[in-house]
């Protein structure tokens, strides 16, 4: 009796195959021979549902395997070592390691050039574009090195995704953030002597001066809040029509300084101030700068000529006005450098 499944010759009279266990008595076998059929309608939907269900199960299973360390190697047999990933942080280095020495040096030189341009054009649209180009160069060089090292298809895709994540998390997000803490650009929006519209100035939020550290004549960046722009004065609601935010001005007097206007000259402690108004009232006036405040020149964006809401102050000087004072704790940094235009690039004193 030969088995129909494995062709093994069994002893006559056997009920099942001695090798594979298949029955040898099909005449006694009670089994349906017509297969079950799927419903005519919705077959595709059912198959799609079952497929996605199985894919979901597969994903959950894979996730469990990753957490228990049983997963297949993410990169097959070609796992890039940790040192390779660290080299990726230096543009062009991995390329040199895989033999593309000239390309590696060219990438590094190009990246340094772009980084220098990014610093020079910080705070401008061009600066952002240059940072993007630097990232592209860095990333594509890393990806090329993976490809030259022999990573293929899916593994290359995975390595590329990880590389992008690594570069963004380690370099291209934290470094600009830190840089912006150390050096922040301000773009001057309208002519404000000695600056002109479009000039880019730098100040440092991380090294903001403590109260009392600012000397007269220095340029400061200060922040106004709603509390500063809306306040009660002499029983009336005093509204300064301006938005809270960062402003720039020049400090003229420190706390305790005597500021005096004699109808022609503005003096601080008897010395002519570094800033003089173009015009002023004939009537003499004086004030002592209160503790915790600085006496400042008019602000950048809100000079009298351009702000119709302050015309009441014309011809230009009210020493008691809250617009002339800024609290020391509102100072966010000292302007220290004029970056643009590059031809006039110089330190601001």
């Amino acid at each position, binding site marked *: 009796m030969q088995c*129909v*499944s*494995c062709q093994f010759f069994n002893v006559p009279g056997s009920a099942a195959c001695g090798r*594979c*266990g*298949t*029955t040898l008595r*099909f005449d006694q*076998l009670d*089994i*349906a*021979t*017509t*297969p*079950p*059929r*799927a419903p005519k309608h919705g*077959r*595709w939907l*059912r*198959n799609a549902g*079952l*497929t*996605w*269900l*199985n*894919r979901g*199960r*597969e994903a959950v*299973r894979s996730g469990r395997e990753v957490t228990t360390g049983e997963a297949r190697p993410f990169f097959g047999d070609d796992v890039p070592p940790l040192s390779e990933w660290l080299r990726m942080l230096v543009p062009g280095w991995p390329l040199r390691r895989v033999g593309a020495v000239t390309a590696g040096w060219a990438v590094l030189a190009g990246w340094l050039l772009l980084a220098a341009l990014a610093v020079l054009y910080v705070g401008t649209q061009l600066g952002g574009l240059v940072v993007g180009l630097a990232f592209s160069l860095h990333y594509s060089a890393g990806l090329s090195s993976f490809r030259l090292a022999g990573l293929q*298809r*899916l593994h290359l895709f995975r390595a590329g995704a990880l590389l992008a994540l690594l570069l963004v998390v380690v370099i291209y997000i934290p470094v600009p953030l830190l840089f912006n803490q150390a050096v922040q650009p301000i773009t001057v929006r309208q002519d404000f002597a000695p600056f002109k519209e479009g000039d880019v100035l730098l100040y440092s939020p991380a090294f903001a001066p403590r109260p009392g550290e600012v000397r007269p004549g220095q340029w400061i960046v200060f922040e106004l809040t709603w509390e500063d722009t809306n306040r009660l004065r002499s029983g009336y609601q005093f509204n300064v029509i301006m938005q809270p935010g960062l402003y720039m001005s020049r400090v003229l007097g420190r706390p305790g300084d005597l500021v005096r206007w004699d109808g022609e000259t503005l003096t601080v402690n008897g010395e002519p101030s570094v800033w003089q108004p173009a015009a002023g009232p004939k009537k003499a006036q004086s004030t002592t700068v209160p503790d915790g405040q600085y006496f400042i020149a008019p602000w950048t964006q809100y000079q009298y000529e351009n702000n119709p809401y302050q015309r009441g102050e014309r011809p230009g000087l009210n020493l008691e006005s809250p617009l002339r004072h800024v609290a020391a704790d509102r100072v966010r940094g000292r302007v220290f450098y004029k970056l643009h235009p590059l031809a006039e690039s110089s330190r601001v004193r």
Partner: protein
Amino acid sequence: MPRFDRLELDGPPPEDDFGGKPAAAADVRDEQHWLKQADRERRQGHHETALRMYSRALEDNKAVIAAWVGQVQMLVLLGEYPEAELWARKALEVFKNHPDLLAGRAQAFGRLGDKRQAMGACDQALSQPGESAYRWVVRGELMLINKESIDRHCFDKAAAADPDWLVQAEIGLLLMHHKQPAKALPRFRAAIEAEPESPFLWMKRADCERALGLADATAESLRRVLDLAPGHPEAKMALDAQTARRGSLLGKLLGLFGH
């Protein structure tokens, strides 16, 4: 080659399909008869009818493994994957570890997205003794599903294990199922080389060519289908649609780019 059976050549009269039995015996409808019917229908792409023929064969003789395997294969080709898996499992209860039934189960699992079970069943099928094309076809399909690059090697191995053009045609069908017309076209071409008179193969080839945007080749294949099977409704409709499209301005513009 059944089409040469009726040629009037010198020598003894041709034997019929039943090994030279008397003509009256040709009406005997045993399991072999139904198997042949099923095979004929399958080669014409009539999978529903082939499935019925396999069932008829099993009604006559439950020990015909080819019919069980054929049923599972037809259920897969008809897109009834849960039923195919269930049926393969049932058949495996009788024919323990039969490689083609295991392969059929693996194919059903693969189509349902259960890669793990599919690979398990396929590994089991390949570990069984003997050599059959179907298990390599299924292996290739699973490689394709897993996006591994060795699917072609498995399909070539299947074609080498069984030179029947049906193997190439069914590889082409599964490649089309996975939206790989570029890979399917050479399979249908190979099948057509072996069987140039099959409208089914020409129709499938036309489908491939249409998916690849080869308008002229598609029209040529469809015309070939109509030559072989005049009035073939599907081919006629496709050719009419193609002609109408080529007559339109958009069609002419696309024609400039080879579409």
